[in-house]
């Protein structure tokens, strides 16, 4: 028992010092995201192809309320920030972006709508932000996983690449919403269907721990929301460029 606890202590101490070292490097840049959170093995072939050949990239964001900021213009929410950031990084590419909000809809309800949403738009990439409504309504995680799986399959059959985006890190509602089962199940689907998962939860938690944003604070005004969404949009653009293996040559 004793030796075990020393081992644990050693591992914990190692982990803490590693985290401290990593933090020291990250500190100066605001809303920096550690590389491992923006790395994925799952490719985005349709995006890569569109950038290479067509020079036009059509993106569709499907999400619940947290894909927009209440009482702020859409230009401040992460989808628009993503578009701006992509245009910045890929000046030679036309980036079109549409947003379809599905407020208060569970993954299952949204999955049923996906065909209609994709129809006509012919996106190369669909970013599906989901999980929040399901977590709030305590949907059975197995059913949730099935619904996300079906939805991703629908989108893939429609000829689009898919990125899954999980929940926000929301410390103030932690005692009310049980998040882990939904995050775990989204990770499972991402693995099974070989689609990249944008881990919004871990990224925002990282920012909170690094001190970039104080997400605990109850009364932050609209500014905090705008900054977080801006950072999310930029992180997402890095994530997409990395997953699609868009080299520096194509970025010009």
């Amino acid at each position, binding site marked *: 028992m004793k030796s075990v606890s020393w081992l644990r202590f050693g591992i914990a101490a190692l982990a803490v010092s590693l985290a401290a070292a990593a933090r020291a490097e990250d500190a100066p840049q605001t809303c920096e995201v550690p590389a491992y959170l923006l790395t994925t093995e799952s490719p985005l072939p349709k995006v890569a192809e569109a950038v290479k050949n067509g020079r036009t990239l059509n993106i569709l964001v499907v999400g619940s309320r947290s894909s927009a900021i209440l009482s702020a213009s859409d230009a401040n929410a992460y989808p628009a920030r993503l578009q701006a950031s992509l245009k910045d990084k890929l000046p030679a590419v036309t980036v079109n972006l549409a947003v379809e909000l599905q407020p208060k809809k569970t993954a299952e309800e949204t999955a049923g709508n996906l065909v209609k949403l994709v129809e006509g738009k012919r996106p190369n990439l669909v970013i599906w932000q989901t999980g929040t409504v399901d977590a709030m309504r305590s949907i059975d995680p197995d059913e949730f996983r099935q619904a996300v799986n079906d939805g991703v399959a629908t989108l893939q059959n429609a000829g689009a690449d898919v990125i899954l985006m999980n929940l926000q890190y929301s410390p103030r509602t932690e*005692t009310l919403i049980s998040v882990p089962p939904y995050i775990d199940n989204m990770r499972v689907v991402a693995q099974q269907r070989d689609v990249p998962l944008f881990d919004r939860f871990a990224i925002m938690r990282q920012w909170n721990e690094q001190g970039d944003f104080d997400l605990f604070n109850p009364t932050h005004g609209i500014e905090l929301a705008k900054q977080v969404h801006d950072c999310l949009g930029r992180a997402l653009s890095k994530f997409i460029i990395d997953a699609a293996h868009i080299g520096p040559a194509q970025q010009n």
Partner: protein
Amino acid sequence: MAASAIAATPAVTSVPTAPAASATTAAPAITFPAVGERELRLDLFRGLALWLIFIDHLPPNILTWFTIRNYGFSDATEIFIFISGYTAAFVYGRAMQDAGFVVATARILRRVWQIYVAHVFLFTIFLAEISYVATSFENPLYTEEMGIMDFLKQPDVTIVQALILRFRPVNMDVLPLYIVLMLFLPLILWLMRWRPDLTLALSVVLYAVTWEFDLYLSAYPNGFWAFNPFAWQLLFVFGAWCALGGAKRMSRILNSPITLGLCVAYLVAAFCVTLTWYIPQLGHLMPRRIEQWMYPIDKTDLDVLRFAHFLALAALTVHYLRKDWPLLKSRWLRPLIVCGQHSLEIFCLGVFLAFAGHFVLAEVSGGPMMHAMISLCGILAMWGVAALISWYKREADKGAARKGARSNADMAGGG
């Protein structure tokens, strides 16, 4: 006098927590030991589980690295439920032997009532905190998440649903599970006294049926119980089975080098898997086929991988940590043991402190130092209150001894 001693024990021992699971199996105490002799390993591990549950209920901080869920599949909940089953069977099993089925059932129901009242008390505190947070929280970033507070708009429905255990906030799932398990304890004990192995087999069958046919209890406003009683009863019944002789009959298997080797191998494998959760760079080392077979590791229905992980931990603990381990009597382990001896009180205190901790983090500041401080202060508070209860019980016992044994029984049993 004997009666009072027995009544006193249930109050202390039967408390709902399960932390000591690992220690429990060890107890070869299968034949009821002399009254007054405590199995300190049970107290130790139950105390440990209480601390770990408290830390796990707080937002992640440095101390989170010390909780066992970071090093394998199972966590403190398994320990808690197993030890609960063990101690409950031990205490009320003896009551059933001495006083008969009806009296033992009555005592169990009284215990259930105490746990229920504790749960409702915690819910009241929770409601107060949430109402405050809801009225003072205005962050446009979390408009969607704040929708969860909508239940406050219908207090009539919400409170009634909470009273019938269907509405349970996060972190308040363990007591309702324990209430349901305790309600069935008379039946379990009755079966156990008749055919222990058959009872355990029935429990396994129920567990398998739960997985096959997806049995669950629904919750309010929607969803299901986060700890499925149909699945988690397996740990509870297994604890009871160990307490009533199973551990002794199993001891040859438990002490064989093959078992121990398998346990070590499994724990190491589980540790390697958990490493890939925290160091994502290692993720590509995991074969995809194993990942697809293994994930998700389901806590709601007590995944078999979790159960096996707990068994391995328990077997090793029981083997290497003997009942007469001298440190059990040392002052260094006193804080844990004393917490384990008053587990219902300390469990409730832990849930309350976790709420309070969230509140302080939200209202004052959320720095990492603050997180660590809150965890430490919480643990000190749990220790302090447990020591206070111990002191009070000792004094009350002294007073009661002068007046006669009868009142003593009530006092101790009621605590």
